[in-house]
């Protein structure tokens, strides 16, 4: 113990960190790491508790309100919430948030009576949505109940966008997608399906009050290397091929398949190939295994199906004989890092590698394509050919035209598209009503004590020690026979319940009231993760080193309570707080209280206009 710490406490507090303003909704929102990380800010712990209580329909509705496609996302989400999950900082793995969402969707039962009904009175405003993917459908869902006339355009015969065309059915069964898309089409938008939009100006000429562009990033990047033209009959662009499989235009592939690329599309391509006759399917990637863009679980799923991943191989040439593809020639590379830590792939000098194959699937990235937007339609484009879109309002330089999803800022994922859709719907609703789109509605926030009695809380504060549960899969022998057989079986109710118990309830906040505190140290002594310190104030950098346990994770805030009798401050490192409530249980004066923080992002509607 250092001598400095032994100094008698000063009566007046030293200068340093300002007391935390917990009335700013962002403060506690950040503590709910999963919700903060979710682009749509789904109140994750709230729905996990509902699942634990067996209230699947309620859990589903919490999701549906925030992310529109719980059943789809419960199977396919990119899960930005999981790396953020606090559980992953106190033990090996985060809560299986995504698969719990699926538990809610699988067990929800009939919920149609809880959904909004088609508007009975129309407001006379007409909105066009280009593309029927997750971004546009979200805009439609938010605007239709308000009385808007919404027209949705798509080139494909059925709504769903990339959720239908690019995600294989063994990952996302058609009936799950149909149901959730149906919840939106039941609100009676005008669907103009099966015809590509060729001109934005033509759409604008129809006199819409606003246009939303949610056409995705529909063009798969090509690979222009020798042999591409000669062997083109057996070289397919990944997303186009997946789309053809989805619409059943393609139902087989050669026995030996090479998939080029290391993203999630590549994983879908190789796994689909295994189900359409591919026996020797391999993925070949330029980068190393760790740097691959595919989600770790998708790589894992591919390898489980007997698909090897070859790394550090750059395709050099498609080899062919008599106009028929025979294989791909690769150059071996290695990673080198410059002084700044930037990686480059340089030839390793080893001999080239040749893999024989019958078909190649190219999944090396996607691009935006806006040939249908006339350059004089009032929309500015940047030097990469992307429209200039405001990141908060989603408005383009043509105030009537809004963008969202992959069309706005390049390829991302479904949950981002949903978040953009909500934001764009707010903007459109304001815009057509003559309000400022820059003036964003604040979120709806409640903060309520969970205390029921001494050592009694209205949430389950007993921390489960269980490790993450694995989702059961169909055995390969069955799964690989049918491209439509869902391979992940999902958690059943029992397993789902067990997994819910791993959630730390990070939305139940430790709220500190300095004027009630008698500085007895009970909270400091009981805290299992040494989060709480009573000490002299100081600037944040200094304070972080002087806490009971050093606060090294600077992405997590220090909660400062000021106004104690000894002139010290209470400093709590939010980083590893288990939200077990033991500080509040041990507090003799109620200076600590556990209060549930529920934040719902405002969506388009009267409530946000009123402000």
């Amino acid at each position: 113990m250092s001598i400095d710490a032994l100094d008698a406490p000063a009566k007046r507090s030293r200068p340093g960190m300002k007391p935390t303003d917990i009335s700013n909704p962002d403060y506690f929102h950040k503590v709910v790491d999963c919700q903060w990380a979710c682009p749509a800010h789904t109140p994750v712990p709230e729905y996990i508790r509902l699942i634990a209580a067996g209230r699947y329909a309620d859990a589903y509705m919490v999701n549906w309100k925030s992310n529109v496609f719980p059943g789809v996302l419960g199977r396919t989400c990119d899960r930005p919430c999981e790396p953020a999950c606090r559980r992953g900082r106190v033990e090996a793995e985060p809560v299986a948030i995504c698969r719990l969402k699926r538990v809610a969707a699988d067990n929800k039962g009939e919920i149609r009576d809880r959904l909004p009904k088609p508007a009975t009175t129309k407001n006379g405003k007409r909105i066009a949505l280009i593309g029927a993917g997750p971004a546009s459908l979200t805009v439609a869902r938010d605007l239709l109940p308000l009385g808007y006339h919404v027209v949705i355009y798509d080139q494909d015969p059925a709504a769903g966008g990339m959720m239908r065309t690019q995600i294989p059915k063994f990952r996302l069964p058609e009936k799950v997608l149909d149901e959730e898309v149906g919840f939106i089409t039941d609100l009676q938008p005008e669907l103009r399906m099966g015809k590509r939009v060729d001109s934005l100006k033509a759409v604008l000429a129809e006199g819409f009050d606003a246009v939303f562009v949610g056409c995705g990033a529909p063009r798969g990047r090509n690979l222009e290397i020798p042999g591409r033209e000669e062997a083109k009959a057996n070289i397919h662009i990944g997303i186009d091929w997946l789309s053809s499989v989805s619409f059943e235009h393609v139902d087989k592939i050669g026995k030996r398949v090479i998939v080029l690329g290391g993203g999630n599309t590549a994983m879908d391509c190789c796994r689909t190939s295994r189900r359409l006759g591919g026996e020797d399917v391999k993925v070949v990637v330029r980068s190393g295994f760790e740097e691959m863009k595919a989600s770790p679980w998708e790589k894992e799923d591919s390898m489980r199906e007997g698909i090897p991943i070859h790394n550090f191989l750059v395709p050099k040439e498609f080899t062919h004989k008599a106009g028929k593809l025979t294989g791909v020639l690769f150059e071996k590379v290695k990673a080198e890092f410059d002084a700044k830590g930037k990686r480059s792939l340089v030839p390793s000098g080893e001999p080239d590698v040749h893999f024989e194959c019958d078909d190649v699937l190219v999944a090396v990235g996607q691009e935006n394509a806006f040939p249908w937007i006339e350059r004089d339609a009032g929309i500015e484009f940047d030097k990469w050919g992307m429209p200039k879109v405001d990141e908060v309002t989603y408005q383009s330089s043509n105030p009537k035209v809004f963008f969202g999803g992959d069309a706005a800022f390049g390829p991302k994922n479904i949950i981002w598209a949903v978040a953009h859709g909500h934001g764009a719907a707010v903007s459109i609703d304001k815009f057509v009503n003559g309000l400022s789109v820059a003036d964003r509605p604040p979120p709806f926030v409640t903060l309520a004590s969970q205390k029921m009695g001494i050592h009694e809380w209205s949430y389950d504060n007993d921390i489960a020690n269980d490790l993450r549960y694995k989702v059961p899969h169909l055995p390969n022998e069955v799964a690989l026979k049918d491209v439509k057989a869902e391979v992940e079986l999902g958690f059943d109710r029992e397993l789902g319940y067990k997994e819910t118990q791993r959630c730390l309830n990070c939305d139940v906040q430790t709220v500190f009231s300095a004027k009630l505190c008698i500085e007895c140290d009970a909270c400091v002594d009981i805290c299992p993760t040494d989060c709480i310190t009573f000490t002299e104030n100081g600037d944040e950098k200094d304070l972080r080193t002087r806490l009971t346990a050093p606060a090294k994770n600077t992405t997590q805030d220090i909660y400062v309570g000021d106004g104690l009798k000894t002139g010290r401050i209470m400093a709590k490192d939010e980083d590893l707080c288990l939200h077990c409530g033991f500080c509040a249980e041990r507090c003799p004066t109620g200076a600590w209280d556990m209060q549930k923080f529920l934040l719902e992002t405002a969506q388009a509607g009267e409530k946000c206009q009123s402000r």
Partner: protein
Amino acid sequence: MTYLAKPKFRHPSLEKNERGFTRRDYEGSISTLCAGCGHDSISAAIIQACFELNIEPHRIAKMSGIGCSSKTPDYFLGQSHGFNSVHGRMPSVLTGANLANKNLIYLGVSGDGDSASIGLGQFVHCVRRGVNMTYITENNGVYGLTKGQFSATADRGSKSKAGGTNTDSPIDLVSMALLAGATFVGRSFSGDKPQLVPLIKAALSHNGPAFIDVISPCVAFNNHAGSTKSFDFVRDHNDAVNRLDFFEGRAEIVTDYEPGTVQDVEQHDGSIIRLHKIADSYDPTNKVATMNYLATHHEKGEVVTGLLYLDPNPKDMHQLLRTVDVPLNRLGVKELCPGAKALDTINDEYR
């Protein structure tokens, strides 16, 4: 009312000591005392002290009597030996255990009721026999388990929660320990771990009767205005004579303090207690001056804390009794029944 076990998850950067234990390995079962009890802070200080001293838990025997304080050994050092004895009889049990096995570290935990009322005689005699132990009283001035009557250490004139005034003269356990011959005497406050932890460490390393009186506010029955054992009163009247650092070896001793502000006292085992003087001219090795200081400052209504008295070269009970080096419980039948011939030799000495 349920008491959940403290979650197993710990801070990933939690340090391990030389024995490979983290601080949390020295914890016991979950406390069932009232929320905010000063005793729980003392338990935390004991845990911290044992962790910092790299003590193997099985080397400690924790003994207690009856009362809130005497429940606490269940809440720390869950891997150590323990004995929860009859009310006020902990000193006898501890003495017996120490006689049988002097190789363990003895930690007696008691309260103002257990030591100043029913066990007062036991306390004094245990100290005067020079038993090598650390004797901690968790002193809150009330009988908490029976809802807050004044205990024998309550100051005259202090008010009870129900409004009554104490008319009896208080027993000062620190003065009694000094009189009875304790060779290490300290007083501290449950709300001041930076003072308490090194004090406990020094006491545990002391080879003789070490006594620490810890003022430990009873949040349920004695933490109100008019109490002299409340958080506010002790903070306002705390007259700390010194603060200390405890060093197990000489290696880390560096003197970069102004002369006269620091006093290093070397103990028998080579450990060093470094005292940062707060009260000028306070010399904790002078027993008479210490008693004088305590009396004077008690008159002023101050709570004197710190390391109050230290004999750096104490003699413990085993030295005084001249017992054999081997702990008595290790002696076999051969040593204990040396036979008729040996008895004859002994008897011959008295003829």
